[in-house]
């Protein structure tokens, strides 16, 4: 009887519901944490300079590599290990599985080097000699190699300065070409002074360009003279041009503090460097920049549009069947697959508006499109369209949550609807509106599908902002972290080698979303403090 009573009470108080809701929360949190943990475990270790092992196998051969992981063999007879053996140009593959029972001995000799190369991935081996460009190799130490590399590096620095000049000159030549095209289109006479002037200018820049190219060729040749000879694990010798070596280090000699410094340097390179080797190596700066700018421009469009639309819906439109239909439509918009938005963006923005702009403002350049092709502006607009329902819904809710007394108090003092809106309602709704913006930004940061057809590229030649007038080039194509993940993870010729970068990029994307929403949440909390009534 007492037990019955107890059970009755148990159900009445709702204990099972508490447990159920707690469990649901735990499951969601757990999945999120596991996902993040997997990304972090795989992503954070990528740049750690782990030691190089030299293995001697039963068949007498020798292998040098970094241990990636070990797992039971398929017949469960023992363990097998995966090694990164690098030297793609010599072996044809970067990774190799070795059964543990094949290994006779393993060592970590100090003299093993890792070369990060501009091409063909890493090289693992031992230094044999140095050839300063004379044709005969002299035996050398690692210190000699670093010294030679330093010299080459300064030459390469000069070369990249030259390259910048070349870029500037070619940009000017392109501008002159476009102006000439315009004159052609306007049927300006051959002997027109404008045309003469352009021709003169073109000659000057072409001359300059030619000289620069000549200089560049000469300097490159000189910079590429110095070489070094290395021996790989299988005894094969490889001659490598010093200019092709990005970095050399001997992981087995490094102390923990050396390794930490190295790690931090690689991390810094990730943030500021350009990608190398079809994006599988190097930095992610253009992709980070493109992602942040895309979200920023998207917010510029979707935020005002959404807020104003919500104000009309909530404050001005007369509640009726039409408004209800609009509201349902807005809510449904949020459920349309994003690729559909992408197709709409392609058809409406790029082919429609973009082409219209081209034929109106730049008819001389056709059929080469200027705005009639994918670009940052169109991708931003497409994403704005995708996120605008989120902003509308949250703004509407925030406005609706304001107590009626506030409006009445304002009206009773003789204020108009507009004054009430601007001075009372919008400030009070601002925390809720910010919530909408945060959700919209997070959604936009994660979208890839619509971008793929509205302007994202694997490798953009230039950033959307630079020193050339008008500084913001929203018509340019751009790189994006989300697309980067897809590209290097699934489109790369060497997927296994690109895998670490996939995790790093994912980590970075998550980090960016986190930073942006933290800033927005901070702003929202500040507003909330000022207008305590906010219920979001």
């Amino acid at each position: 009887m007492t037990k019955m009573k107890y059970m009755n009470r148990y159900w009445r108080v709702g204990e099972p519901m508490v447990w159920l809701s707690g469990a649901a929360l735990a499951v969601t949190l757990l999945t999120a944490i596991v996902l993040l943990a997997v990304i972090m475990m795989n992503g954070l270790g990528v740049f750690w300079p782990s030691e190089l092992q030299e293995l001697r196998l039963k068949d007498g051969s020798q292998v040098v590599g970094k241990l990636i992981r070990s797992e039971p063999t398929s017949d469960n007879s023992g363990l097998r290990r995966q090694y990164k053996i690098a030297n793609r140009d010599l072996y044809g593959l970067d990774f190799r599985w070795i059964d543990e029972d094949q290994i006779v001995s393993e060592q970590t000799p100090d003299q093993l080097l890792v070369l990060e190369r501009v091409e063909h991935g890493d090289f693992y081996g031992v230094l044999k000699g140095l050839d300063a460009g004379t044709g005969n190799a002299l035996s050398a130490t690692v210190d000699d190699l670093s010294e030679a590399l330093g010299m080459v590096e300064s030459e390469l620095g000069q070369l990249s300065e030259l390259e910048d000049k070349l870029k500037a000159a070619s940009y000017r030549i392109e501008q002159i070409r476009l102006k000439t095209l315009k004159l052609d289109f306007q049927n300006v006479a051959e002997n027109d002074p404008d045309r003469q002037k352009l021709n003169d200018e073109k000659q000057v820049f072409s001359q300059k360009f030619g000289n620069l190219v000549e200089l560049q060729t000469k300097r490159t040749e000189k910079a590429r003279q110095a070489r070094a000879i290395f021996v790989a694990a299988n005894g094969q010798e490889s001659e490598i041009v010093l200019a092709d070596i990005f970095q050399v280090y001997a992981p087995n000699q490094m102390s923990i503090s050396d390794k930490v410094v190295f790690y931090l340097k690689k991390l810094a390179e990730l943030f500021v460097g350009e990608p190398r080797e079809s994006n599988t190596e190097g930095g992610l700066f253009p992709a980070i920049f493109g992602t942040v700018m895309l979200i920023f421009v998207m917010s510029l469009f979707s935020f005002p549009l959404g807020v104003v639309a919500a104000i009309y819906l909530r404050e001005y439109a007369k509640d009726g069947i039409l408004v209800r239909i609009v509201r349902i439509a807005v809510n449904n918009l949020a459920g349309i697959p994003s690729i559909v938005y992408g197709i709409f963006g392609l058809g409406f923005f790029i082919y429609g508006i973009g082409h219209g702009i081209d034929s109106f403002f730049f008819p001389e350049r056709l059929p080469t499109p200027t705005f009639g092709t994918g670009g940052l502006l169109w991708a931003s607009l497409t994403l704005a369209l995708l996120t605008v329902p989120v902003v509308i819904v949250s703004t509407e809710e925030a406005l609706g949550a304001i107590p009626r007394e506030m409006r009445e108090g304002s009206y009773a003092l003789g204020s108009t609807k507009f004054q009430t809106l601007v001075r009372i309602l919008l400030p009070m709704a601002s925390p809720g509106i910010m919530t909408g913006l945060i959700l919209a930004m997070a959604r936009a940061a994660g979208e890839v599908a619509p971008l793929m057809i509205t302007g994202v590229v694997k490798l953009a030649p230039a950033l959307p902002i630079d020193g050339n007038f008008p500084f913001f080039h929203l018509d340019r194509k751009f790189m994006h972290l989300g697309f980067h993940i897809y590209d290097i993870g699934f489109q790369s010729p060497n997927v296994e080698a690109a895998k670490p970068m996939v995790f790093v990029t994912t980590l970075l994307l998550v980090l960016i979303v986190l930073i942006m929403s933290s800033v927005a949440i901070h702003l929202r909390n500040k507003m909330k403090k000022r207008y305590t009534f906010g219920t979001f």
Partner: protein
Amino acid sequence: MTTSRIENPIIQVNDLKFYYPGNARALHGIDLSFPEKQVTALIGPSGCGKSTLIRCFNRMNDLIDGCRIEGEVILEGESIYDQNTDIIELRRKVGMVFQKSNPFPKSIYENVIYGLRIAGEKDKKLFDERVETSLKAAALWDEVKDRLQESALGLSGGQMQRLCIARAIAVNPKVILMDEPCSALDPKSTARVEETIKELRDDYTIIIVTHNMQQAARVSDHTAFLFEGNLIEYGLTDQLFVKPQNQQTEDYITGRFG
């Protein structure tokens, strides 16, 4: 309907009928006039139409979609339901204090001058002056003079309500409507608000809706008793409470119903 008409009223209500959406009639033809610079209390049980009636005086009911009004309300000789009435101008003349205090999420100072600001006033000196006089009139000045720039949401309930009174006074209205201003306040705060009302009597016409008959007896000069959308009795407060003419009024004020 004893003395529902008086000489030179500031507000004259003639046969006012009010319908909520769906044709639900809340007022069945009210005839009433309010004397200038006096306090008039409207009493009656819940749902008798007191609030609906005073909300007709500053056209607050316009905010309700689908409501309908018949009859006329004349403020200083002009019908406020005329087509040419400027509602903004009307609401500046007829201020209102609500049942639930509703200070804006702004500083105390900004709350008081809100009405001036939206009227386009920009004179800083006038602002300072009005803030002081209005807060003094609402008996709040001494409590808040050192923290005018702090948020009004940090005030106590009674202070908030007095701030709302100060806010209404700041635009120099002719009439102040009070819709159960003390219903959410403790006795001490209520006493202070009542004190304020008595002090305002010399300068403003006050119409107060209240559930509390003692309060009506304490603060008002005239009292009107409404029941189910009809005006039952109207007269000097002293007379109405001591010697009610109507049986219903007597039942109500002696607590037999309501």
